[in-house]
């Protein structure tokens, strides 16, 4: 069957999800909007009453907001990194996952940095970072990295949509769409007609973007890690921080990808697209990453444990003390380092649903591990804390912080709901490209020379 006929067939199968929205769609948007409004109310309260209504105090100056910032940016960089690698390595089975990965990247990169603004007591002073940047400061590095990555990722996402916009433009007559959407597809398709020259140009642009997105993501997340690693604080000051951050990001990105795939498979009946094999391959990746995570964490822990410094011992004892963070630590480390090996590793437990549920636990566990990396460390300074009230020493998030956290998740979900209405959640055109049709731009000439030789 010709590729354009296959494309039409795939578009026909998925047209209900991109055509004019129904009541169910509006209900989803309404629920998400309510959650976002609660978050906005909390934000207004926080701005008018100050940070006193959050759990953050002089000593523990970072709380749930910074945990969300680190965690969500990790998901973003993971999305970019995995998408870039899959694209450049021409992984055929991973083609249907490309769009989800790129959407995770962009949406997380938009929402994540908002949490750093919520941490600021005087957010208007953020402007000074642009007016008076110091190239020596890891905060400036991170600012440059996030801005660069955001621009690159938005443009990369758009490039991957061009073929599908052209497909929608050419088939809009058969679809029940609003008039403005037809005009939008025509404009965004950039006159793409799938001629060999156009295809070559677009594929080269995609290859270049994929190639620069991979190092950009690794550098950007490493820079974020160095915000912690460059601190002389116990628990942060380690050469392991950046590699550990990147590993955690990829791990959480795969877990989120499985969850989103599972949701779309269930709600849009995409069993033919997101097949059992996708879940198995990504599930096994989770097992491998969980073992790596366990190894990295153990390596970090035992190095710290051998350190006889008093402050280090105080911090580590908090992770083992069940009256402090013992329960959080035990449950989280079980979820991230052992659970995938048990549920996905043992065939008896393994199923599509169990892989998805394990991913939910892994994601939750990784969030808690981020929390444990930040809050207990801030509660354990080198100098003893004196003349402080209890609430200054022990951090406890308030409903303001939780509602803004939920609002952030709701915004990401809302973006997904809107994006999957605007265009198919699977890259139809890309999926239908024949194997070997899209030659890899960087090694193309090298391969030709080799074959001649």
């Amino acid at each position, binding site marked *: 069957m010709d590729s354009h006929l296959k494309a039409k067939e795939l578009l026909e199968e998925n047209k209900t999800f991109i055509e004019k929205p129904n009541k169910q769609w509006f209900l989803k948007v309404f629920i998400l909007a309510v959650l976002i409004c609660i978050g906005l109310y909390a934000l207004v309260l926080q701005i008018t009453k100050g940070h006193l209504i959050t759990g953050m105090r002089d000593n523990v100056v970072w709380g749930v907001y910074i945990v969300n910032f680190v965690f969500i940016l990790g998901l973003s960089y993971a999305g970019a990194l995995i998408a870039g690698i899959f694209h450049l390595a021409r992984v055929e089975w991973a083609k249907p996952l490309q769009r989800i990965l790129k959407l995770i990247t962009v949406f997380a990169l938009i929402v994540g940095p908002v949490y750093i603004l919520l941490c600021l007591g005087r957010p208007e002073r953020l402007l000074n970072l642009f007016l008076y940047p110091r*190239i*020596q400061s890891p905060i400036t590095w991170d600012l440059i990295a996030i801005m660069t990555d955001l621009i690159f990722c938005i443009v990369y996402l758009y490039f991957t949509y061009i073929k599908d916009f052209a497909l929608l433009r050419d088939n809009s007559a058969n679809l029940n769409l609003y008039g403005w959407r037809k005009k939008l597809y025509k404009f965004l398709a950039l006159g793409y007609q799938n001629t060999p020259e156009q295809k070559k140009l677009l594929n080269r642009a995609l290859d270049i973007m994929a190639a620069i997105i991979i190092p950009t993501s690794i550098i950007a997340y490493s820079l974020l890690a160095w915000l912690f690693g460059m601190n002389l604080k116990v628990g942060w000051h380690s050469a392991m921080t950046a590699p550990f951050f990147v590993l955690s990001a990829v791990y959480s990105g795969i877990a989120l990808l499985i969850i989103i795939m599972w949701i779309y498979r269930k709600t849009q009946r995409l069993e033919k697209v997101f097949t059992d094999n996708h879940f198995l391959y990504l599930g096994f990746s989770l097992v491998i990453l969980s073992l790596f995570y366990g190894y990295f964490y153990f390596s970090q822990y035992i190095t710290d444990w051998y350190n006889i410094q008093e402050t280090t011992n105080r911090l580590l004892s908090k992770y083992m003390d069940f009256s402090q963070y013992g329960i959080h630590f035990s449950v989280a480390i079980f979820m991230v380092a052992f659970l995938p090996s048990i549920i996905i590793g043992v065939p008896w437990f393994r199923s599509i649903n169990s892989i998805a549920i394990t991913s939910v636990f892994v994601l939750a566990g990784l969030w808690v591990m981020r929390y444990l990396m930040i809050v207990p460390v801030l509660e354990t300074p080198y100098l003893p804390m004196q003349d402080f009230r209890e609430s200054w020493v022990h951090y406890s998030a308030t409903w303001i912080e939780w509602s803004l956290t939920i609002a952030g998740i709701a915004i990401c979900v809302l973006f997904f709901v809107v994006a999957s209405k605007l265009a198919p959640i699977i890259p139809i055109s890309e999926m239908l490209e024949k194997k070997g049709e899209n030659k890899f731009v960087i090694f193309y000439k090298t391969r030709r020379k080799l074959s001649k030789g």
Partner: protein
Amino acid sequence: MDMKPKYILTTALLFLFFFYYLPAKTTAAANIQKKTKTRLKVYYEKLANSDKKISIILFQGTGKKMKGIENAELVLTTFDLDNERQLTTIYTDANGNAMLIIEAKYLFPKDERGYSVVKVMYSGNDSLKAAQKKVKFMDLNVDVSFEIVDSIKLITVSTFEIDSIGNPKPIEGVKLNIGVERLFSTLYLSKIETNKKGIGTMEFPEDIAGDSIGTINVIVKIDDNDDYGTITKAKKINWGTIVDYSNVSENRSLFGDEAPLWMIISVFVVLAGAWYHFILAIYKVLKIKKIEPKILNEPL
């Protein structure tokens, strides 16, 4: 059949009871509005410059339901023998807090035992009950001096009251916290207690970091004493170890005024490389529009 009027009567009475009498009673009760109890907390503190501070919190409820009362008028009075004399009137802020700072030169009248009393009164309103609270304190003086005996650095603190004829009277058994001022809070070094002469001493450690000439600010504090309230005294001395911060900056270029050359070059090479390829990719995509065939290709 005879029983029927009885049932009707009973039902009617119950109806009247539930739908007229009980709601009427509840409404009547609601009309007599209960006033909410208010509470006051008053603290006395003598500041480092010898000014006196009266801190007040006016609130309703307790525990998690505790809520400050905003913009309430508080009348402060003091007692000269049996005569009550008004000091001033102040208002609470949004959290129910109010504060009065009295200059050191103002002398509070004392009773026969040497105590001064400040009374804070809140007169209440339509919904809030009135409240009042007294705080009683003695005016204790704290002096800090430094001496070196046999190469040992000693901080000496003396505590005394001024009697009615103006002579200092040493006070024994006063517990004092001694510390040094750090960036965010005080680092406490020791707790001492004054002897019969009203004097307490403490050996100053050799390893406390000072500024570029070794100056440190020694803080002596009495915390919430039953008789004297909270008293803070501060005095500077160059007993700290000298920390030359300019050298620190040179050694750790990350915090220097100028970024090292390798860092500037690295950042610009990485950014230029990334942005060059980014612009190249955009250029290629924009060319798609330019080479759009005029005769439509087979639809996608």
